């Protein structure tokens, strides 16, 4: 008995299955005569239709063709409807004015004025919807009329060619400083156009740069055979350096995303850098805080500004939004002042990288407060520190608490 059990146990499932199948096999053995192989019908299933004429073939063919043509026609129609874009799409607001929901560039529109609706030219456009110009590659200048009083932070998202945003002087809510959009009271910077440096190059005499072979080049990424270190420094100061006015207290959401800047001077009165405020400014090497209390006219004189500037984020800064400085790998020094009370998630994400075994970019974050005080005072989002890829698990970069600001 035991032997039998042991033998049964020793049979693997493959062998068992083979046995089961062998037992079932006769049930499925069908005795089909040779001349019925194409017509034999299995119980519960339809009979084969090989070589059999179909009843009412002509009518059925016509029916199928008609149905297919309608179906194909509808499919094409719906698909075309879905991608058909009108250049301007508006929404009517409660007060009867219009909001520009989406602008789809009909071809080569490079300058656009937003003032009144395009169709009747009567209704004023008072608002720009989020993503109104999403991923436009042609627009170089947008002019906001006097009626536009509401602009979403994402309205100009990914406008890769946008150089300037001009605002009607009579606009009560916004203004521009040489093509950069601010709120009227100059307390918030709303949008630094992505290609603003191109505008600065052209307006400040760098429009005809050439390489060693005499071929025109659009911009410089370092000293060349033609342009020495001193020229490059001046070039950067003129086209890739930006000084925020002293009145600014907030860097708006996405305000400087993808800005081609090497140096950015923040005012000491700055209180908040909102979400993605300085997102992916990949050339940004230095952030300075400017203590110079001068008016707007002094902004152009960098030598005056530099005298009263200290490196990194300003004393008095309270909030650093999520992903505020993400992707700024050219940055090397980051000091978090004692006034900071909130750091959003991934605020300094991807600001460092590994090259030839060395950590480049922000390799350490300096924090003014001691660790205990910092943790007690500051609300920290997940992964606020950048991480460095080690090939295995990523590692948080070091933090130096109680650090003093570099001279």
């Amino acid at each position, binding site marked *: 008995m035991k032997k039998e059990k*042991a033998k049964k146990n*020793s*049979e*693997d499932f*493959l*062998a068992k*299955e*083979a046995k089961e*199948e*062998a037992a079932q*096999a006769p*049930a*499925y*053995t*069908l005795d089909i005569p040779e001349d019925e192989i194409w017509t*034999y019908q*299995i119980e519960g*299933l*339809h009979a*084969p*239709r*090989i070589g059999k004429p*179909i009843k009412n073939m002509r009518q*059925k063919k016509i029916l199928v063709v008609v149905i297919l043509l309608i*179906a*194909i026609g*509808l*499919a*094409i129609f*719906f*698909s075309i409807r*879905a*991608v058909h*874009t009108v*250049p301007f799409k508006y929404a009517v607001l409660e007060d009867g004015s219009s909001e520009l929901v989406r602008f789809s*560039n*009909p*071809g080569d529109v490079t300058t656009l004025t937003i003032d009144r609706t395009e169709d009747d030219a009567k209704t004023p456009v008072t608002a720009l919807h*989020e*993503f109104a110009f*999403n*991923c436009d590659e042609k627009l170089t200048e947008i002019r906001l009329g006097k009626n536009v009083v509401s602009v979403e932070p*994402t309205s100009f*998202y*990914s406008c890769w060619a946008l150089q300037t945003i001009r605002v009607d002087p009579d606009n009560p809510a916004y203004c521009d400083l040489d093509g950069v959009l601010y709120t009227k009271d100059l307390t918030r910077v709303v949008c630094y156009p992505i290609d603003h440096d191109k505008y600065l190059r052209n307006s400040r005499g760098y429009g005809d740069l050439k390489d060693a072979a005499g071929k025109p080049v659009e911009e410089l990424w370092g000293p060349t055979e033609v342009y020495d270190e001193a020229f490059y420094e001046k070039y950067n100061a003129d086209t890739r350096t930006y000084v925020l006015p002293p009145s600014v207290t907030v860097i708006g959401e*996405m305000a400087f*995303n993808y800005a081609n800047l090497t140096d950015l001077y923040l005012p000491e009165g700055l209180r908040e850098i909102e*979400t993605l405020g300085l*997102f*992916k400014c990949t050339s940004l090497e230095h952030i300075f805080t400017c203590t110079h209390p001068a008016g707007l006219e002094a902004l152009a004189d960098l030598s005056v500004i530099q005298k009263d500037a200290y490196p990194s984020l300003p004393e008095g800064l309270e909030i650093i939004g*999520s*992903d505020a400085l993400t992707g700024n790998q050219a940055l090397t020094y980051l000091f978090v002042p004692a006034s900071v009370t909130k750091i959003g*998630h*991934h605020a300094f*994400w991807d600001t460092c990288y590994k090259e030839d075994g060395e950590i480049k970019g922000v390799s350490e974050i300096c924090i003014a407060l001691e660790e205990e005080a910092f943790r007690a005072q500051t609300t920290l989002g*997940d*992964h606020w520190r950048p991480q460095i890829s080690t*090939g*295995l*698990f990523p590692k948080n970069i070091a933090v130096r608490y109680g650090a003093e600001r570099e001279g």
Partner: protein
Amino acid sequence: MEENKSGFGGKVKGLLREIRSHWNTPAPGKYVPYKEYKDVIVSVGSNYAGSKTLEYIAFAASCYLMMYHYKLPYLTFSVINIINMPLGYVWTLIWWFVCDNLGFLPKKTERKLVITYVSMVVIGLSLIIFDITRFFDQSGWFVTYMNSLEGISCASAFKILGTHTFFNGYVGLRNIFWRKKLIPKFGRYKYCLYSDVVPKCIMVVLIGWLPFYNIPDVVTRVWVANLLFAVYNMFGFGEQMEAAAMNISPNVRERILVRSYPIKISHIFNSILAIILPVFIGMLRYKWADINMFRYVIPITFITFATLTIVFAGRVKERIPQPPLEKKVQINFWDGMFGVMGNKYKWINTVYQLLDSLGNGMLGITTILYLYTFRLSGLAYSLIVALISFAGTPPDLFAPYFLKRFKYKHLMIFFQLSRAIGNGIIVLAILFCGENLTLCGTLCVVVLFLMEVCKTVPVTAQHDMDVRINDYQMYLSGERLENFSGVFGWFTGPITSFVGLIIPLLLLKYGFNSNWDILFVDASRIKIIVIPMIIDIVGYVLMAIPFFFWDYTDDKQFKVIEVLRRREEVTRKQLEEEQNSAAAQETQETEEGAAPVPVSCTQEVTE
């Protein structure tokens, strides 16, 4: 305890004995020797891993090459589809007809098709090379309208149309040529690996190295990229080995065994790759956005797996019970159309797929969760992906048991409902604890893991259901008509194209376009993930309904296979008799001095 041990040990020994004794010859009632299981593991595994590697390269918004380097507007892909759509229907009809006849056509028909295809190649090339819009009124409505389309101009639209025509002409010619040449030797599923593997390898290398993404003008970049990818897509490297291995035996139980063990084990190649590849990519300076990923990592990986596939592919046999090619049933166009329409189970599949289209246009939600919500990269990313994909392995080992114990329809209903519940939990986690990345992440990973566990057995069942539907079609029509089945997609086209564009338009509204960085914005990312997922949940619940009508039992399947086997047996016998008599006649005529009369298979088929 002791008895258990000996019982287990005995079972292992028994299994080894069984494998040893049937290593070279199949067990009674079976068709596949265990040696072939080993070949299935390597060939299917390499083919699967290679084709998965190619998923990184696509002319679609979700491809990293498009996303980070070509930067094409999201809507442009839809516009290109529409430009290609009307003619695409015509080419597809011809394609079905050729494929479901396995490339063996009556001589006259073949000649007509070759002329059509050659003309298409010439017209296509002409449209690409010459700018025909110079004959149009440049200020007319047509040119103005075409110029207004995103990423397209009137001139480039004709180049895109030319690319489509050239692509279909050239692929059509190759299709007839290679099918006739290779199907008799390698079978209907894996033949194209042999014809396509070398050019595919070359194109994979070129895709990374050709710097067309540097073209500054987006319109030119769009049509050039479209042309480049058309040439790339001329050569396939799909999961043909898996299709071949699923038809490795007429014995349905043996098919399930092969599907559950060697095929499943073979996926380990891809699991390992899924761990290693992101680690290598994580080492690159710009990670997923680094062009070296397409220059080195992808080509080296692909070429390695492609080589392994080809080396082992020849050792795996397709064993569909079917008449010899000389005796195969000739399918004319209307036979094909009405043939598939008479298959009830194809209608069930159609309704199921129609409801599935509710999720069309959705982005890879898990990818977004991993890369943008949890910011995973390197090994951490690999391990999570591997963990989730491994989740399906243990239940797969028990798939034969589940498939035997539960009805297919119950498994499929369970599958849809489990997906709806799982996605529902993820949506709730993102909405109510999205701020806490650790808690939300853990919840999502656990749910994804459980969903994967629940998915495996039904997916195996679904694969087997597809094979069974084709067996049934062969019983009905004498051919599997896998290509003519595409007509169901035409019937449902209006609904799928309408529904399928809802999600892309919603995504566009939330800011999703050619720049994926929008996913770093919390508010946009949550909407981009959650809203399409809710639509998907509704789809999953509805998708359970068609399976209530599935009544194709094991009993019916066994009988269908028996009929097919009998047809093969009889037709083979008839062929042999005919060949013998032809040989006898030939000998007689030679003796009498008359010229021999060759009997081509197509003539035979025509008769």
